[in-house]
């Protein structure tokens, strides 16, 4: 029988704000048991981070928490800072979201871990240092004794997160809280960190409260799931039960809108209309009602309480029985499949051959000396034909964003060639020709908030590219109305400022602006990664519709393979500035040939507990090396999981000779000597 570690009863948290007190959490209850992981799932405004902060007593000044948080019978909310400090770090350890700023920059890593030990246990400095080295080794930092003397800025994001985990488990806590521990990390690093968390759980036998918005992570690591929406728990169940038979329409919608990397043939995602509500505006009835296709008249009057539907499965919805057994597409309505238009031999809208870009690495503040070269992009070649979507996939440091920016500059690249609509940008082109090319290629960036100047109203924002192209006042007005219609926004918003819109709406605005000059190619840099999960599906469907309607070609940069699965026709996988595999999306997902592609695909969590827990995973060791010192041979050589299985002669070849892309009939092209 597992032990009850922590019990939350009726927790409510309010924050002060310019508009008066705001309720972030409105009465939730949870039980956490030793050795089991409870996943708390939610999007923006759900209150999940506030819950974690109140358990730890780390709410910001001015915030108030009511209710009970019982740890071994003691109510933590009633403790003052001094008594609570004796609990923090000893009985409860916490892992935070952003590892880059979580460690104190002026103390060495070993010192910080040793200090964490000495806060709660009377040991000598030497003993604490030994324990710190032991912990650093436990969380997978190689050469822990030497690295304990290093400072946080000498570690990468993934390594810093390992240190944070070491801090959390330093004193064998009974509970580990992990608040979005992997959201800021690359997908292969995410896989490593989740593995470290499992190790930590096994070592300490602690209960784990895992806060996340990623259902794939939940499927792979949680035992129990609680779904939060608008400050309350709306569904709670064992993980397999939740994924197989969700009872709340919101949960059903979430499952439907999550792209899955191993889905069958590409299908449109099921979007949930609208956006998650902000804590500042609370309506009397069920908060999900505005977005719920199954809503009844009485849903607006009273908020349903969390009741038991089946043993160990609770839900707060009066329509739960109508959800049972139905698929997301049936309840939320599937968007119509746009006609799949594959012209046989369409012209190439974009052709990139042998593109390379390097940056000098300098040191010294006043007199900059060049100490090395960063090879951001090396010999990248691909093309994009009219009507197709090509995705560049890779993690941070792979050079995909640099490639995009090189293309957008429309200048002859450092080496290699760039052709837009058949015209090479290198020759001396007349200004009108250059303008035509500029208008033919437009970009949508990752963060819609940063891409829109907050001081300009919508009209000015959309007019800017039109005016730069020489459009007249009347024509501009008409075109703007047309654009807003295209992206599904009402035309009366032209006088409002970007701050007045939600994330999804802002992204629609940036898409509208990009379409203003009737481009042939749209370049998209992580178009949905800054948006809430339930909103992503809507934007992806919009992009698909626009492509079919306007005959566009897309070049998309993404790190989320699940998203890529749903939109790509062809995919190029990049690692350290090189294209390591390129080919048809179907072929790549079905039969990936390069070991990096295989590892990448393996690292993406599948939102299905049965499949996720039973599949074989490839977890890469180590970290991506710096692009400033590229090895002579294959760039993936030092981390390649296939390497140990090769003959000595082949291994030597991998170390000496950099492989080039070799095609295989009926498959993809891969740059690997052992493919």
């Amino acid at each position, binding site marked *: 029988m597992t032990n009850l570690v922590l019990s939350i009863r009726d927790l409510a948290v309010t924050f002060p704000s310019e508009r008066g007190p705001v309720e972030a959490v409105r009465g939730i209850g949870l039980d956490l048991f030793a050795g089991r992981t409870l996943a708390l799932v939610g999007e923006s405004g759900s209150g999940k981070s506030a819950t974690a902060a109140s358990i730890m007593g780390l709410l910001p000044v001015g915030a108030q928490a009511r209710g009970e948080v019982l740890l071994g019978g003691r109510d933590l909310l009633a403790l003052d800072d001094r008594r609570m400090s004796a609990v923090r770090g000893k009985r409860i350890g916490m892992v935070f979201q952003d590892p880059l*700023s979580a460690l104190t920059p002026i103390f060495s890593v070993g010192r910080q871990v040793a200090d964490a030990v000495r806060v709660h246990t009377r040991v000598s400095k030497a003993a604490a240092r030994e324990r710190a080295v032991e912990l650093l080794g436990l969380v997978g930092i190689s050469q822990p004794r030497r690295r304990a003397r290093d400072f946080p800025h000498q570690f990468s994001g993934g390594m810093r997160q390992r240190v944070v985990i070491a801090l959390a488990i330093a004193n064998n806590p009974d509970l580990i809280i992990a608040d979005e521990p992997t959201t800021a990390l690359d997908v292969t690093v995410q896989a490593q960190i989740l593995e470290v968390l499992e190790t930590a759980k096994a070592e300490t036998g602690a209960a784990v409260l895992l806060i996340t918005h990623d259902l794939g992570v939940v499927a792979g690591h949680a035992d129990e799931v609680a779904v939060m929406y608008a400050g309350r728990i709306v569904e709670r169940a064992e993980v397999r039960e939740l994924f197989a038979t969700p009872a709340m329409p919101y949960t059903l919608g979430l499952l439907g809108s999550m792209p899955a990397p191993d889905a069958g043939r590409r299908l449109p995602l099921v979007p949930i209309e609208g956006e998650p509500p902000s804590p500042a505006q609370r309506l009397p009835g069920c908060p999900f009602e505005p977005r719920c296709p199954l809503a009844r008249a009485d849903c607006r009057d009273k908020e349903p309480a969390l009741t038991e539907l089946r043993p160990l499965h609770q839900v707060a919805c009066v329509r739960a029985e109508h959800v049972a057994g139905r698929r997301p597409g049936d309840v939320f309505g599937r968007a119509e499949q746009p006609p799949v238009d594959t012209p046989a031999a369409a012209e190439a809208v974009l052709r990139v051959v042998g593109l390379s870009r390097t940056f000098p690495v300098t040191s010294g503040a006043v007199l900059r000396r060049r100490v090395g070269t960063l090879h951001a992009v090396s010999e990248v070649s691909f093309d994009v034909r009219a009507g197709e979507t090509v995705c560049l996939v890779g993690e941070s440091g792979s050079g995909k964003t640099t490639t995009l920016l090189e293309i957008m500059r429309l200048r002859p690249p450092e080496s290699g060639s760039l052709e837009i609509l058949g015209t090479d940008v290198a020759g001396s082109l007349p200004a009108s020709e250059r303008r035509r090319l500029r208008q033919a290629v*437009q970009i949508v960036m990752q963060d819609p908030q*940063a891409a829109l*100047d907050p001081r300009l109203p919508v009209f000015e924002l959309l007019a800017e590219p039109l005016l730069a192209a020489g459009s007249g006042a009347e024509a501009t007005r008409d075109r703007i109305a047309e654009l807003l219609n295209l992206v599904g926004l009402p035309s009366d918003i032209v006088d409002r400022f970007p701050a007045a819109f939600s994330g999804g709406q802002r992204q629609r605005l940036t898409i509208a602006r990009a379409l203003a000059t009737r481009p042939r190619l749209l370049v998209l840099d992580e178009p949905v990664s800054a948006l809430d999960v339930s909103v992503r599906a809507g934007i992806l469907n919009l992009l698909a519709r626009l492509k079919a309607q306007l005959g566009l070609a897309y070049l998309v940069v993404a790190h989320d393979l699940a998203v890529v699965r749903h939109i790509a026709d062809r995919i190029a996988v990049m690692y350290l500035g090189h294209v390591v595999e390129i080919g048809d999306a179907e072929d790549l997902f079905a039969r990936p040939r390069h070991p990096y592609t295989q590892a990448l695909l393996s690292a993406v969590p599948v939102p299905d507990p049965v499949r996720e827990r039973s599949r074989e995973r490839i977890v890469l060791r180590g970290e991506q090396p710096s692009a400033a010192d590229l090895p002579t041979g294959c760039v993936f050589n030092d981390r390649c999981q296939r390497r140990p299985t090769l003959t000595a002669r082949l291994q030597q070849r991998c170390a000496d000779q950099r492989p080039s892309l070799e095609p295989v009939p009926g498959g993809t092209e891969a740059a690997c000597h052992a493919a």
Partner: protein
Amino acid sequence: MITTLPTSAPDDSPAPPPPRLGRARLYVRRFARNRPAGAGVVIFLVLFGYAAIGGHVSRWNWSDQDFLALTEPPGASHWFGTNQGGNDVFTQSAHGLQRSLVIALSVSVLTVVISAVVGAGAAYLGGRVERWTLAVIHFLLVVPAFLILALVSNRVSGDWRVLILLLTLFGWMFTARVIWSVSTSLRERDYVLMAEFMGVSRRRIVARHIIPHLGALLIVNLTLGVVTTVLSETALSFLGFGVKTPDVSLGSLLADGSVTISSAPWLFAAPAGLLVLLTVALTLIGDGLRDALDPTSTAGGHG
């Protein structure tokens, strides 16, 4: 290096908009809520009025010498008293304040304009232009400015117009550096990059996207620039290098008053009091403006 936690709702909320407020009205409202700033405005207006019409209100002229009333304490005929030469302190102070204000306001406006153009331009144009501009700025910061100011103004016998030029010459670097560093962070913003990709010309980008964002910074610097100029000019005139006889500024009046400080304290009190009121009022206004226009800056901090 250091990041901040949000102080209201922790999850970022993307959803529905608050009722729309005109931006200008929002600023005015925030400024009006700030009581010390309001007091500052009142004080400044009173001083401004005094400087403008003080000379006309009194029956004395600032250069008149009333030989019947030498070094007299404040009284009915001379509201602020007289000095050893029989000059009426009230009108002299008004003239001095006027002089100091004219110098300070002109210098501040010129400085802000030059700093904005140089700082924003250097940041946006980048490359060699930026490097050379920064080198010039750093060099000028290192040069002993006060010394040179003293040398040159001494030579030109305190002509206030030359003084304006000099103070501007040595004053623009500080603000330019601040503007440059803010502009460099602005030019990295996505919407500036987007404007480039949409084919908007560089000049238009600087004018439309960069300079308006500096607006808050420029306004605050304008106000506080007046304060620093007043202080510099006062120090120079006090030492005898700035505004010199027969012309009068608050600094020179202070120097005159310092000789007879215990025997005729009103000669010191008038210019000293005016200076303190002026600088404090302007600082309060500047702080209030900063809070109203850019509440995210932590340098403010009104609860």
